């Protein structure tokens, strides 16, 4: 399948030779003016699906809603490097910078504007947007609508209303690697989509080797149990890291800091951290060090993840069981983006330590019932004896008979 002729200049601008079949179909849907939803595996190149049609309509604005600032900075930088008119609005921008972005909006000189969903609630922003020619609204990582909207970012639930209130309804494009079959309807409903076209790609990531490790201990002291987990992290990093990078996910900021401290002793000058409480300049520096490969080990909370494009990650380690399957799949999706083999090691235990962390999250949440359900799904996955890859695909509604032959459960089965 060949891309349309009208895409050629846009592809040239972004220095792209060819597109995948899975990318062309949704691009055509967008160019035809349909609301579109794309579910594609991590590292498939989802961003291009909306960027190319937006570049075809370069005189109109494409508004992109991203969940994290890291993602915004990354995307805007990439586009600006290609000489494309792209900018962003966030809390770090001064009033004068914000005014100049809004002025560019009203002049129609901006092709891409990146924001977080919270920005849509600003009346000044709404007023500026109502005056410009809006081609498309993109909701990147749209699973956040159902994942976070009900818990701690209700701004996600207001996106639909925002689109509805625009003077002329633009086309809507939503994409994610983790859309479940039953959430498509919910998404379509929340975003007020008109008969959206849904494109689902094969979600299998063949280069990810899924592993899990039971760290249940009889020791009564939590400190000792944690210490043994810390040692297991060190061991896994030594075993699986070759020349590439490592990402270690922990559930709490405290664990991230403690792991950062601990690992810095054994891997001096190699470790960086990332969580929401870190001071912006420090966080930025650490992120940059990791993205540029100066430091190879990243310890982070869930805040670090979606859209982070470090090609050489060869180990993704979960220090705690993630809160949901979506989190888990998003996080392991950071690995092996350059096609190399990536080990995804999941630590779990039956002492109830992770359960306690989950309970504390539940207490803070307004929708604990949904959180519990998701956590249970994750627990079912952890304790399942079937192929881990198959379990993940089944969770997202993709049936496959082939087992991966590489995960912990498949390896166990082979040894029998």
């Amino acid at each position, binding site marked *: 399948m060949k891309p349309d002729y009208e895409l050629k200049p846009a592809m040239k601008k972004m220095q792209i030779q060819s597109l995948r079949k899975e990318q062309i179909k949704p691009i055509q849907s967008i160019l035809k003016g349909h609301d579109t939803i794309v579910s594609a595996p991590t590292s498939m190149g989802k961003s291009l699906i909306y960027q190319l049609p937006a570049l075809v309509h370069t005189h109109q604005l494409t508004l992109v809603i991203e969940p994290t600032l890291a993602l915004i900075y990354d995307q805007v930088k990439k586009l600006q490097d290609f000489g494309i008119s792209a900018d962003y609005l966030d809390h770090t921008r001064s009033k004068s910078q914000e005014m100049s972005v809004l002025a560019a909006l009203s002049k129609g000189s901006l092709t891409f504007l990146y924001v977080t969903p919270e920005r849509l609630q600003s009346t000044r922003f709404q007023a500026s947007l109502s005056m410009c020619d809006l081609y498309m609204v993109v909701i990147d990582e749209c699973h956040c609508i159902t994942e976070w909207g009900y818990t701690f970012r209700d701004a996600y639930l207001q996106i639909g209303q925002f689109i509805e209130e625009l003077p002329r309804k633009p086309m809507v494009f939503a994409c994610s690697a983790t859309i479940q079959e039953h959430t498509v309807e919910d998404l379509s409903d929340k975003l007020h989509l008109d008969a959206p076209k849904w494109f689902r790609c094969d979600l299998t990531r063949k280069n990810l080797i899924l592993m899990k490790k039971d760290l249940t201990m009889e020791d009564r*002291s*939590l*400190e*000792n149990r*944690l210490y043994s987990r810390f040692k297991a992290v060190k061991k896994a990093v030594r075993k699986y890291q070759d020349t590439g990078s490592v990402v270690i996910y922990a559930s709490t900021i405290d664990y991230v*800091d403690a792991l950062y401290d*601990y690992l810095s002793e054994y891997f001096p000058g190699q470790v960086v951290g990332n*969580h929401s*409480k*870190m001071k912006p300049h420090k966080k930025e520096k650490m992120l940059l060090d990791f993205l540029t490969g100066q430091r190879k080990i990243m310890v982070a909370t869930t805040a670090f993840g979606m859209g982070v494009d470090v090609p050489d990650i060869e180990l993704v380690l979960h220090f705690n069981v993630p809160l949901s399957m979506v989190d888990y799949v998003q996080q392991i999706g950071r690995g092996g983006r350059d096609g190399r083999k990536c080990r995804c090691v999941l630590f779990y235990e039956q002492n109830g330590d992770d359960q306690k962390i989950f309970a504390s999250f539940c207490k803070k949440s307004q929708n604990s019932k949904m959180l519990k359900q998701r956590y249970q799904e994750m627990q079912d996955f952890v304790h399942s004896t079937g192929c881990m890859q198959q379990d993940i695909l089944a969770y997202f509604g993709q049936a496959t008979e082939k087992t991966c032959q590489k995960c912990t459960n498949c390896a166990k089965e082979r040894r029998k």
Partner: protein
Amino acid sequence: MKIERGIHTFSLTAPCSYHTIQELRETQSHYVRKISGARLTKIISLNKYKPQGVEILLTQSIDHRSWIRLIINPSSLCSGRYEPLALFQAEHADLKQIHKRLKEIIKELDLPMKLKDFKLNRVDLTRNLYCKSSEEVKVRLDIFRKSEQLPHYKEKNLRHKSGERDEAVDQPLYANKKNQHSWTTCAKNCEFSVYDKGYELKKQHGITILSSILRLELRISRQRLQKLAGKGNWEDQLHQLSKDQDKIMDKFLHRLHQDFPQVVHREEAFKRIEKSSFQKRTKDKMRELVKKMSSCGSFTAARQKMGLSKKSFIQLLGKFKKIKISPIPLLEKFVRSSLYSE
């Protein structure tokens, strides 16, 4: 004898996130005071404000709550320089000054909590007894060693450092000298310490003072503090404790049986007993107690040797109160005939 009374140290504490401590560790000069076996819990000391009278202790733990503790020498904080002997009276004007200074420190450190989030964790009610000689200090210290052993209290072995304490008496210098210059008894929420302040200053800070000072410190902490000072904010609590300090200290000394007005030699004690109007049987018991007190380590040991119940022992001590002498006799080699407590 000249006696000074007041608060020497108090500490304020607030829960703190692991991350806040991490940030402090990265930005401030510090040293790790204690580390747990698994190395995941640390007690860290920031000394930046110590010359101004504020030591900051951080307890960073992954499995328990993390804390920040401000250990404040209020006299030093008010004057802006180290005041080892000054004792603080918590009057409103001074408290205001302390409040202002602490607020500045919190701001300088960029701590996420406010001063009102801190709770009073410990107060050292202190008395400086100005003795005539260092020998008198030693003699008085020996008298304190013979105090009643209170239930739930244990004599502190200073060979084991407590880690979180800031007091000089916790330092190993006393441990090496077999506690020659200090005596401490402690329970969960209260600690009473008697020590030679001159010796401590010389060894710890290299400061020589001309006076011979015996310091009595009653360190009250946690629930006990709330019981004595009420549930108000830390400034109100400090003010209340400062107001009630004599009452609290006297009550504690009474429990230790250290509230007798005069201490005399054995012969003098016998003379006074003989002169008294008590019955012969009582006089015999009193004499026996004086003898036992010169040989036994404490009131408790003497009572047990005499086979007396606690009630009758207290009654017997009451007789000593009437003749205004302590049952603990002065050592023969001590040249002065008597020591007055007031």
